[in-house]
């Protein structure tokens, strides 16, 4: 991907791999296998843009976010932030970068300590990085509160005195207190009611403009991702299936998985729903302990052929797409093609569906 939205590359992930060992035995705890949570992801995030990350439960989107922020150590691969390789830095060398990248979490109840006052929660980043203290810190915390639309006079309240939407604002104030460059929003509105969701989404986009923030936006609600993102990456089983400008992905997705995922989204518009062809995928997502050979999507893909079983398709532009739109598929979907009518061209026995199932819990 060479051209893209304006701005320099702020973050570059190259071939990021994260495997979690599965251990067995009571004494030696030998590693008997590994969960391939993220399995070779390369992508770039440019200054000032929003990259949406979508995919089903267990596809590795949150793990990838945690690798990028180095909350997890990488198994292999590199992460460059602002031109510097941060993938092997130790805790203290990492600290200056932590200021620059912050996270907003899903659960506004679980991510705030119920026994601490809001002022002290939002003041944490200042305390940790030893930036401001005393009156100065208080002033800056209240500024952060004002920034996200909280009343600065509520400095001494406890999280329990706030509603879900307001708590999410507290989380946002904490993340933005040190004016980071990159903010990773991990399902920031999923726990909120619809009417409150819109308030928080508007807030995030206002703040992006005001502070020139760069977002990585993870959500399972595909219409929210479409609304906020400049570019979208679709992940499946630890790999990027497709990446490109958000309207390209939503309107002419090349990867059959992209199409299936989008066709499954219920649209709050009954008349639009009626004419829509839905691609219902067979079976469940295979186990990341033992991912399928070749293209990881082949066991569920309506367009699968023999090549898909043997060869892993590279993530490259397909069918004359611009360089910023890439799909990992040997037989990409053409415009106007209805893949709900396709049938796989490989024998059933070659499609290794049962590889164990991942749990949802």
């Amino acid at each position: 991907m060479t051209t893209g939205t304006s701005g320099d590359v702020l973050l570059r992930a190259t071939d990021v791999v994260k495997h979690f060992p599965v251990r067995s035995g009571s004494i030696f705890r030998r590693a008997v296998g590994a969960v391939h949570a993220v399995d070779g992801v390369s992508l770039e995030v440019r200054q000032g843009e929003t990259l949406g990350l979508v995919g089903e439960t267990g596809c590795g989107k949150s793990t990838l976010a945690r690798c990028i922020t180095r909350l997890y150590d990488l198994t292999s691969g590199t992460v460059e932030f602002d031109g510097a390789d941060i993938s092997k830095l130790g805790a203290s060398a990492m600290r200056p970068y932590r200021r620059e990248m912050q996270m907003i979490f899903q659960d506004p109840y679980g991510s705030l300590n119920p026994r601490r006052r809001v002022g002290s929660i939002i003041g944490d980043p200042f305390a940790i990085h030893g930036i401001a203290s005393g009156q100065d810190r208080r002033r800056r915390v209240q500024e952060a509160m004002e920034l996200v639309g909280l009343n600065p006079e509520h400095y001494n309240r406890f999280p329990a005195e706030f509603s879900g939407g307001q708590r999410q604002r507290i989380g946002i104030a904490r993340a933005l207190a040190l004016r980071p460059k990159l903010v990773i929003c991990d399902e920031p509105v999923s726990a909120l009611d619809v009417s409150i969701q819109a308030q928080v989404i508007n807030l995030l986009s206002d703040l992006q403009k005001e502070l020139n923030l760069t977002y990585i936006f993870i959500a399972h609600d595909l219409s929210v991702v479409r609304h906020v993102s400049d570019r979208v990456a679709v992940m499946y089983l630890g790999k990027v299936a497709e990446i490109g400008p958000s309207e390209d992905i939503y309107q002419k997705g090349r990867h059959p998985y992209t199409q299936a995922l989008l066709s499954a989204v219920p649209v709050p518009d009954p008349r639009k729903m009626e004419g829509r062809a839905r691609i219902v995928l067979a079976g469940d997502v295979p186990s990341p302990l033992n991912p399928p050979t070749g293209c990881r999507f082949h066991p569920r893909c309506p367009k699968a052929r023999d090549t898909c079983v043997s060869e892993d398709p590279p993530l490259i532009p397909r069918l004359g797409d611009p360089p910023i739109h890439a799909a990992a598929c040997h037989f990409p979907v053409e415009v106007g093609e209805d893949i709900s009518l396709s049938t796989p061209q490989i024998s059933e026995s070659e499609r290794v569906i049962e590889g164990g199932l991942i749990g949802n819990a």
Partner: protein
Amino acid sequence: MALLEVEDLRVSFATPDGQLDAVRGLSFTVESGKTLGIVGESGSGKSVSTQAIMGLVRGARISGSALFDGNDLLTMDSEALRKIRGAEIGMIFQDPLSSLHPYYRVGWQIIEMIRAHDSSIAKDTARTRAVELLRLVGIPQAENRVDDFPHQFSGGMRQRAMIAMAMALNPKLLIADEPTTALDVTVQAQVLEVMKRLQEEFGTAIIMITHDLGVIAEVADDVVVMYAGAVMEEGARDTIFYDAHHPYAEGLLLSLPGYGTRERLVPIAGQPPSLISLPEGCPFRPRCPYAFDRCTETPPLLDVGDKDDHGSACWLPADRKARAGMRHQPATKRPVAKRAAKK
């Protein structure tokens, strides 16, 4: 006669802070073979109302009536209610993992469900039925998976197993309380598909409780929009989606991201009220962009529009144009962040 007729249902709890009115005069009907969608945000009373009907709410004061096939579920003794619950009315909940017992095999739990209501059914027969049910809801290799434990099932399979269990005795009514909220969209599509197919096959009536307007658009025939324990608007699905009258229903639809546009969203200002100290009059008044003098008086569910099944608890005129003229200026921009910009 409708299959289920709920009339003026009220549910309240005594709390240390005062009486909490969770449901305040809810009425709706469900017809055989149809799907009623109940949509509302957290705290709107959508779940607690159906739980109260099923006798699953403890420590609450409940009044009103809920006629199921002509019998009032609310005054029925617990023994009679137990016979109906499960057999005549099946239920599916949001979280399939906590609704299935982790220590017992999935099949065993379905068999127990069948035999609890009719102990004359032999174990073998019940087991055959369990396999049949799992196959019906699309569990692959049902004859083997019937002996699996719940943890061996994926999230979608568990929810399908729950549906199998709820459908085991061929109920007339299925109450589905956020059945797909915990699932991925692809799995949600599968589960909704299964429910639709079962409804076509067996003519089961469904009450679908959800906060997701997309799901409502997909499955519901009729829709009830709840807010703060009361019905704000009710009508046929398309009426609600394309001809909503109540400002809350309109606000919900407007606050959704548009398909393909990145325009600023239009949220509903403010927050839902506390159910202990509700505002006087219409509960939506403090957030309503149309509120006027008369709103301090609680509006009943009024007939609006030419369709007789379209009701709205709002004093605004039925005519769309007249209504639009009464809207206050759209909410102004956020009055913050000026200081931050200066920095």
